[in-house]
């Protein structure tokens, strides 16, 4: 089949799966409801926190990605792999990890108290942004790092032989790279923060931190006002589309030219100042990301012994959901790796999982028993949710390959199969592995749509964490959260590693 037809089909399915549920909810509601003053206040807060979260995540990621790109040290691979972890933790678990570090009796406050300094208070807008940066900084780092590694090594050698100083190297090589990757990373993070709810509320400290997603939750679960929920969901969608259009317009494809994939020593950034700066960036990022994770691990260890068969079954379901959803996500992402596809996929994550779940329920119910499809729907929605991340990772590389080897294909008259085998897959292996790892891990951690579809015998692990907490089993819940962390990271590592076999990264 022609690639164009494939792209159209993939895009059509994506649009149907995104807009279909909103339409179903709207039809059921009998129209949109008007929004109240509280909703506009929630909208302002939502936009502001999402903007700040995306800004800090992206800007802070630049020095970290740069340091990772030009330094080689022991444990670098492990650090890069662990960077995937915060992003996939269930919100409540991550929030507990952050509180163990930044909370009232957290490490930071214990340190401050020991020095006789006043305690800091994590709750407020800064807490919300802190948590969102914790979740998303690693993602931005990985996206930028991917871009840095895609600069052919010959360019750095050329820069060195031309005697370019750090400033010139920055202008010629690194700044264009950031301009290419950063706006897209900003957009994805902005959109994902638009639908934040539990973390914003918990760390926001109260009703000042009301987000649009909370208003949707209230409309759906408490007021049964589907019209208002649909109106709010459309608002989220419009915001995401605007953010997506602006970001994608800002990011241009850079032309570094093709390289010969040789490992070339870097001559830039060898000064003491640059070394110290990189070390500082890496140390700060590692502490910020890994200390809360370590606290999740420590708190979970005693609970591991308490896990019953139900939790292990749930773990099995989560792994199969994650694998199914990864396969689906990749099958979707490969034909959609272009600007339109990316915009469309951004729309998908901007839709409230609650509205999405309700919409699917309304659509499926006349046809089948939705409970039988609980895991299938979960896998599908998770694939949908992972798609923008997969595309953000794949698209720049896919376009570069097209731009730089397209002439080769024409000259050699490569068949599509040969093109895929010789050029496309080998060159895209690294981003494909990373995208697959991220999809798998994301699917492990997701809880969003399952509320209406929950099947007693086929719970997923995040759901099990909540069930255990609801039954006062806080310790067992911590154990289950640790299991979730280990499995997600394991899957992420396997895929990501698979993509980096025989690669020098």
């Amino acid at each position, binding site marked *: 089949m022609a690639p164009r037809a494939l792209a159209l089909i993939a895009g059509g399915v994506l649009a149907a799966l995104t807009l279909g549920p909103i339409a179903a909810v709207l039809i059921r509601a009998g129209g949109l409801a008007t929004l109240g003053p509280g909703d506009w206040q929630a909208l302002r807060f939502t936009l502001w926190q999402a903007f700040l979260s995306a800004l800090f995540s992206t800007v802070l990621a630049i020095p970290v990605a740069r340091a990772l790109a030009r330094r080689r040290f022991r444990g670098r691979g492990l650090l890069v792999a662990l960077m995937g972890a915060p992003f996939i933790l269930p919100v409540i678990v991550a*929030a507990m990890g952050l509180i163990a570090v930044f909370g*009232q009796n957290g490490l930071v406050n214990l340190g401050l108290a020991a020095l006789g300094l006043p305690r800091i208070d994590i709750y407020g807008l800064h807490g919300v942004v802190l948590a969102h940066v914790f979740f998303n900084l690693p993602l931005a780092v990985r996206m930028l790092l991917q871009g840095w590694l895609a600069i052919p090594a010959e360019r750095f050698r050329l820069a060195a032989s031309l005697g370019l100083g750090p400033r010139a190297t920055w202008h010629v090589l690194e700044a264009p790279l950031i301009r290419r990757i950063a706006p897209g990373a900003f957009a994805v993070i902005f959109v994902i923060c638009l639908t934040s709810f539990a973390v914003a509320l918990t760390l926001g400290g*109260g009703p000042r931190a009301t987000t649009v997603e909370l208003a949707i939750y*209230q409309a759906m679960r408490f007021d049964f006002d589907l019209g208002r929920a649909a109106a709010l969901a459309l608002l989220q969608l419009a915001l995401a589309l605007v953010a997506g259009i602006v970001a994608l317009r800002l990011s241009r494809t850079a032309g570094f030219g093709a390289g010969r994939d040789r490992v070339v020593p870097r001559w830039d950034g060898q000064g003491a100042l640059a070394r110290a700066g990189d070390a500082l960036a890496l140390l700060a990022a590692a502490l910020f990301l890994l200390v809360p994770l370590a606290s999740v691990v420590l708190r979970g260890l005693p609970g591991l012994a308490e896990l019953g068969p*139900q939790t292990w079954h749930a773990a099995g379901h989560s792994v*199969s959901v994650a*694998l199914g959803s990864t396969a689906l996500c990749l099958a979707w992402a490969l034909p959609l790796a272009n600007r339109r596809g990316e915009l469309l996929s951004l729309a998908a994550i901007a839709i409230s999982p609650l509205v999405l779940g309700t919409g699917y329920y309304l659509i499926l119910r006349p046809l089948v028993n939705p409970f039988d499809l609980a895991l299938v729907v979960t896998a599908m929605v998770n694939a949908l949710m992972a798609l923008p991340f997969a595309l953000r990772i794949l698209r720049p590389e896919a376009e570069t390959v097209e731009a730089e080897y397209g002439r080769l294909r024409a000259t050699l008259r490569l068949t599509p199969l040969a093109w895929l085998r010789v050029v496309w897959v080998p060159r895209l292996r690294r981003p494909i592995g990373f995208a697959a790892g991220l999809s798998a891990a994301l699917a492990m951690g997701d809880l969003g749509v399952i509320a209406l579809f929950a099947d*007693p015998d086929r719970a997923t692990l995040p759901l099990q964490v909540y*069930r255990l907490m609801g039954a006062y089993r*806080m310790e067992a819940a911590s154990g289950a959260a640790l299991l979730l962390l280990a499995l997600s990271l394991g899957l992420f590592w396997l895929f990501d590693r698979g993509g980096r076999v025989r690669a020098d990264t």
Partner: protein
Amino acid sequence: MKAPSFAAGLFLATSAFAQGEVLTVYAPDYFVSEWGPGPRIEELFEARCDCDLQFKPGDLLPRILLEGARTEADVVIGLNTDVTKRARESGLFAPHGQDLSPLTLPIDWDDDVFLPFNYSHTAFVYDTTRIETPPESFDALRAAPDDLRLVIQDPRSSISGLALVLWVQAVYGDAAEAAWQDLAPKIVTVTRGWSESYGLFTEGEADMVLSYTTSPAYHMIAEEDFTKKAAIFPEGHYFLVELAAKLAGTDQPELADQFMGFILDEDFQGMITTGNWSIPAALPQEAWPEGFQALDLPDKVLFYSEDEAAALRDEAIDAWRRALSR
């Protein structure tokens, strides 16, 4: 990857039919965990009904309203009083037909549709190793120093959070907003649900957590920990009750009736204490387990009927939001 488990699902479904009739019960999600009351209810009821009781956990009323008269639920268990008005008006529920005289609730209950199975009260729970002298009244809590750290739940996303704003409304009436202003500096944060708050409390992030008068029973019985207590206020505590109801359109009316009767049965009532960590709705105090008898319970119980609560709800939430947004 789906094919084997799907096939297994079909197989299990067919074998279930062979066993007898199926009673479908919608229940809150926490019901069906191995630590929740669901598995024990299922075991006890199946022993007497020659049927297959199947729990379908998840959202209760939103799901039933979406499904309308075509819902496959025969019974729903775990509803709270905040939704009974809406549920009643939907016309989807049928009278339970049970004799209510065995009820041992602290308030009068004569509802012919919604049948209580356990209850509790809102309360601020604290740790005696961290607070030696807890506030002895709601007024004392208001006047407590601002370094007393409270966590509560959001009334817009949680039942207990809603019960709290109704509690403050019942105690302070028109002065509710002023009460919230006094409480505001002590409130560390507001969480989406009870689990998040309770987690923060057990982690030591807060001194007192909005929970239930029955929470200490879990710690006493399951953990032999006697340091968790509920602060009892003479102004009274808001009453929280969990309810079951039969669907009018059930295709298993007899089984559904049998299940409604079973709810008030001594077997069910005796199990629900440690099954759901709540006080049974129809069991005299002498028959409660030891840990429950040791609980501190309020003398005065506050409760709004569903019509009163519906009329007050928006204003009560607004007073909360205004005072805490400042």
